[in-house]
């Protein structure tokens, strides 16, 4: 790898350096914008004790859910984990710790982690279980909760196109949590549909600048659909 070339050729290289007990920040919403290939590589590596922050935990056969089988996840930070029976089982048994975090707060915690903001106040969750044990403060007559930033040893990102310098664009709502995840990892790894040359992406329309990206790998995965809803043509 020379200069700004971020492309790697194998999933082994893409996830090299991931170790037991590390923290991962992952983009994705449901099965949309998920890093299927990188997650399969993590399963193959067998690393354990992972803390993972991601809006959801995938399905049993797709996305982060596949890491449950060998109990690779120690703690999950998510807003909604309803799709997965194995998840429920491990949570009830106590082998999987879960920190439920409101979706918008989770997105903002990832952004804050990347942006050098160690904590911010939000009205979300004030007076609820989410605020327990957290500082609160009044601004302009309303109460707010102090929420701290999230950062990871690795960040997993799914994008549409990357140029070789790691500049990214996302396809439609594939974007979701991926841009914030990209900023919050010590090592940010991106799985993409397509790799293009520098200059092919319009500078003003780049969603994630290459400065946040360490490694880019072309995906080999189709995109599943969780609820296929259609209308008559």
């Amino acid at each position, binding site marked *: 790898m020379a200069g700004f070339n971020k492309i790697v050729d194998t999933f082994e290289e893409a996830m090299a350096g991931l170790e037991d007990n590390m923290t991962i920040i992952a983009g994705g*919403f449901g099965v*949309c914008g998920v890093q299927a290939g990188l997650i399969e590589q993590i399963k193959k590596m067998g690393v354990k004790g992972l803390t993972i922050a991601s809006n959801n935990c995938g399905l049993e056969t797709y996305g982060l859910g596949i890491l449950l089988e060998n109990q690779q996840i120690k703690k999950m930070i998510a*807003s909604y984990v309803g799709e997965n029976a194995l998840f429920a089982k491990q949570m009830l048994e106590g082998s999987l710790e879960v920190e*439920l975090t409101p*979706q918008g707060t989770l*997105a903002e915690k990832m952004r804050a982690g990347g942006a050098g903001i160690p904590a911010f106040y939000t009205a979300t969750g004030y007076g*609820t279980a989410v605020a327990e044990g957290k500082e609160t403060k009044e601004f302009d007559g309303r109460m707010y909760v102090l929420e701290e930033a999230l950062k990871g040893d690795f960040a997993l990102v799914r994008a549409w196109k990357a140029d070789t310098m790691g500049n990214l664009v996302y396809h439609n709502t594939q974007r979701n949590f991926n841009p914030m995840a990209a900023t919050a990892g010590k090592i940010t790894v991106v799985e993409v549909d397509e790799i293009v040359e520098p200059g092919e992406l319009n500078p003003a329309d780049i969603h994630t600048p290459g400065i946040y990206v360490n490694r880019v790998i072309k995906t080999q995965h189709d995109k599943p659909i969780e*609820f296929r809803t*259609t209308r008559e043509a």
Partner: protein
Amino acid sequence: MALTRDQVAQRVAQELQDGYYVNLGIGIPTLVANYVPEGKEVMFQSENGLLGMGPFPTEDEVDPDMINAGKQTVTAVTGASIFSSADSFAMIRGGHIDLTVLGAFEIDVEGNIASWMIPKKLIKGMGGAMDLVAGAANIIVTLTHADKHGKSKLLQKCTLPLTGVGCISTVVTDLAYIEIKDGKFHLKERAPGVSVEEIIEKTAGELVIEGDIPEMKLG
């Protein structure tokens, strides 16, 4: 007669104003999109990161990367914009959505809402509900007035874990249109054919009834 789910949605839809940006939760709220009043334009926001959500796609249009907050495949209307979830919740938290419609398990006279967790049942998570109730200036909650055993969901004090405190001021149930202020429910309209007495009976929290209560006007 208690309203059907579609009739609840129809009543809620009467609150839509021309030029409104609207977020609809899953369940009955989703149906509101089918009853936008003639001559009014509204745009729907989906909190994963889409402003200008359109109808479901045709088979040919299906795109795994174009889904709504319920994880269903959708389309985008002309003039739509797509952004990150952080930008989407900045929009929500910052109070830029004109109207949010969502369901609930319980509501109380202080405007508290419980909608995400039933202890001893499986905990799935709050998703974006806590952000939506904290962020929106204008929220309508839809729920059935009482459960199937006749137990009221409009309470003096919520019993389930809260989603947000003091954030709800309008409730549309299968029986009534109710406003919340000064720590009380205020009955404003009743479903056609439903008596004030039935509503009183099925409302556990303090309910104020001033003057004649008109019937809702539906399509």
